[in-house]
């Protein structure tokens, strides 16, 4: 009985003490070493600078595992305080159904439209003129990572663009090195295809297909070239029998593979392996052909809650995530680019600086996640998985099916 009484008292006191402080649960899928360190920067800032508490709701697995859990919690009436999604249309219907907190007042008070760079990221968060999410970082796909050791062994100079890489591939093969490392996860094949498209077809053709959904361009000669190149890359990847992307990156790090087409998150793997950009490995944005990066990445959404105090805490967190210091601290750990152009990233490494320079010049494209629905992306992913795994599918066949998907895209 005594213990029961003290329990009640304790709860009451806690409740009284927490009248203004809110425990805000934040769900995300950042669980690898570098990612966890980055998200800890958010938690630290939130715990130190506000009276509220960050309750970490990390969901292990990838975004594909985490997103269904998050969505079912939100639609099932058990919303968390804040949740990660990728830039783009993943949470579009949740917003339309009125399940997300409107952040427009915070955005206007702090002038997000002026500080977020590129502003297209804020556009992705904006539906019918209202702002519903906070972009926190930029990740770009358009990189190829090259192993200096592999090219040295094959006796060819490290290529400076995709054509040189293709030309060097037979030499690599002769030395027993896999020219192109690629894991078997579906998204890797689909992502690499996107990178090759932007490099070889150019940004205009890419935008015509992926933004305006022009099936004629997708079936046309410019894209035919892309599919031919992808079919050639399919031969180059033969022999890289790994599943995960970081295992494929590891083939490049250890010199067993010549290169890998992968987003800038691969950089963290090189860092962990104590490799130096420029001496141990090289990175070529846009495959060294078109120096353009796409602005994918992550954004935080705040599911609507009934308690006004929670709502206030959510808005505090939203503004904190975009503040200068937090942006720097978070993105340095994450290896991604900040979403505002007015912060100083002196500590960034060579490859990150290349990315920042391209961003400053404004050579950017939206990410496919921002322009196509998850459904269409899923169909493209299926096609790419099949195409990259089965040499019997010709480039022309794959192109025809691709154009068909684009024609029906929404």
């Amino acid at each position, binding site marked *: 009985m005594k213990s029961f009484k003290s329990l009640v008292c304790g709860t009451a006191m806690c409740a009284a003490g927490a009248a203004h402080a809110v425990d805000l649960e934040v769900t995300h899928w950042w669980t690898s070493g570098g990612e966890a360190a980055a998200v800890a920067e958010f938690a630290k800032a939130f715990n130190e600078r506000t009276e509220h508490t960050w309750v970490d709701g990390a969901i292990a697995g990838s975004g594909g595992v985490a997103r269904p859990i998050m*969505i079912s919690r939100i639609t099932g009436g058990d919303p968390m305080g804040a949740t990660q999604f990728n830039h783009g249309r993943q949470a*579009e*219907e949740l917003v339309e159904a009125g399940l997300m907190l409107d952040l427009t007042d915070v955005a206007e008070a702090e002038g997000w439209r002026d500080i977020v760079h590129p502003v297209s990221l804020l556009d992705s968060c904006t539906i019918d003129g209202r702002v519903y999410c906070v972009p926190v970082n930029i990740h770009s796909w358009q990189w190829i990572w090259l192993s200096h050791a592999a090219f040295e062994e094959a006796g060819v100079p490290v290529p400076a663009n995709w054509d040189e890489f293709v030309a060097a591939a037979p030499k690599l093969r002769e030395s027993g090195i896999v020219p192109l490392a690629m894991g078997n996860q*579906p998204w890797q094949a689909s992502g690499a295809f996107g990178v090759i498209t932007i490099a070889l077809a150019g940004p205009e053709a890419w935008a015509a297909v992926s933004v305006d959904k022009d099936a004629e361009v997708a079936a046309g000669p410019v894209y035919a070239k892309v599919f031919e190149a992808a079919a050639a890359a399919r031969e180059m990847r033969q022999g890289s029998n790994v599943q995960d992307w970081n295992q494929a990156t590891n083939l490049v790090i250890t010199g067993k593979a010549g290169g890998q087409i992968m987003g800038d998150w691969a950089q963290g793997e090189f860092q962990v392996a104590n490799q130096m950009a420029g001496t141990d490995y090289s990175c070529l944005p846009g495959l060294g052909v078109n120096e353009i990066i796409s602005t994918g990445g992550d954004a935080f959404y705040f599911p609507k809650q009934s308690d006004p105090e929670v709502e206030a805490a959510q808005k505090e967190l939203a503004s904190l995530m975009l503040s200068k210091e937090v942006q720097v601290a978070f993105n340095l750990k994450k290896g991604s680019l900040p979403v505002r152009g007015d912060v100083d990233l002196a500590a960034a490494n060579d490859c990150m600086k290349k990315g920042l320079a391209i961003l400053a010049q404004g050579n950017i494209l939206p990410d496919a996640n921002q322009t196509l629905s998850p459904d269409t992306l899923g169909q493209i992913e299926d096609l790419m998985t099949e195409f*990259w*795994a089965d040499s019997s599918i010709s480039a022309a066949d794959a192109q025809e*099916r691709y154009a068909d998907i684009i024609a029906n895209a929404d």
Partner: protein
Amino acid sequence: MAKIAAIPMILTALCVFVGGTLWTVVYSFTSSKLLPKANWVGLDQYERLWNTNRWIVSIENLMIYGICSLVFSLVIGFVLAALLDQKIRFENTFRTIILYPFALSFIVTGLVWQWILNPDFGVQNIVRSLGWASFEFDPLYNQDIVIYGILIAGLWQGTGLIMVLMLAGLRGIDQEIWKAARVDGIPTWKTYIFIVIPMMRPVFITTLVLIASGIVRVFDLVVAQTSGGPGIASEVPAKYVYDTMFLRQNLGQGFAASTMMLLAVAIVIIPWAYLEFGSRKRD
């Protein structure tokens, strides 16, 4: 009184099972994306479904997996049970060993067999290290035979249970029948096939239902072993439903696919139920 007591059960059956099924079928005619919405699009979802290569591959895989799994489970299960039924020593030990895999979930089974069938660490590597350097056995990395790699794991996990059920059935056969058969000079194998098996009909039907429902549901084994790869060579319908509904945010398409699965089950079940229960009435 009995009718009143049955009301909750009837309501549950109607609302939860029939209602949920009908709801799914109805919404498969809409263009629902992330949330169910009543935008009617007729048969569009079904048209798209049957034009999707991945779905066709899934169906083919399910057919191969289903037929092989059915035949091998029954045959291996019955043979093991018949062998164990010969009044051998350590029967309990053998029965336990063979039943053990069934205690593992499909996820664990899948992961275990992913390593056993891995060419660099598993069977292929062991045989090669014994001296047969050209030996090749990598079903999970070969598009043409990947579904058999999954089948092996499925059989390893499920046969034990079938064996135990069969063994129980064999034990239920009266010893007098064996004696009578022996007096008539019928060979043992003939006794099994022409006398014992027909008498074990209820056991066979139970095992058949168990195996069949396991086949239609096969999902976690594939996810753990190959996640549908290489390419889309080991995709199965249940995985298509899950992916479209939850990853690709296309409920309408997922509902259409699950309706097709329901239809497939119905095509098998209804004639069978008709034969089974229809004939009993005539008796």
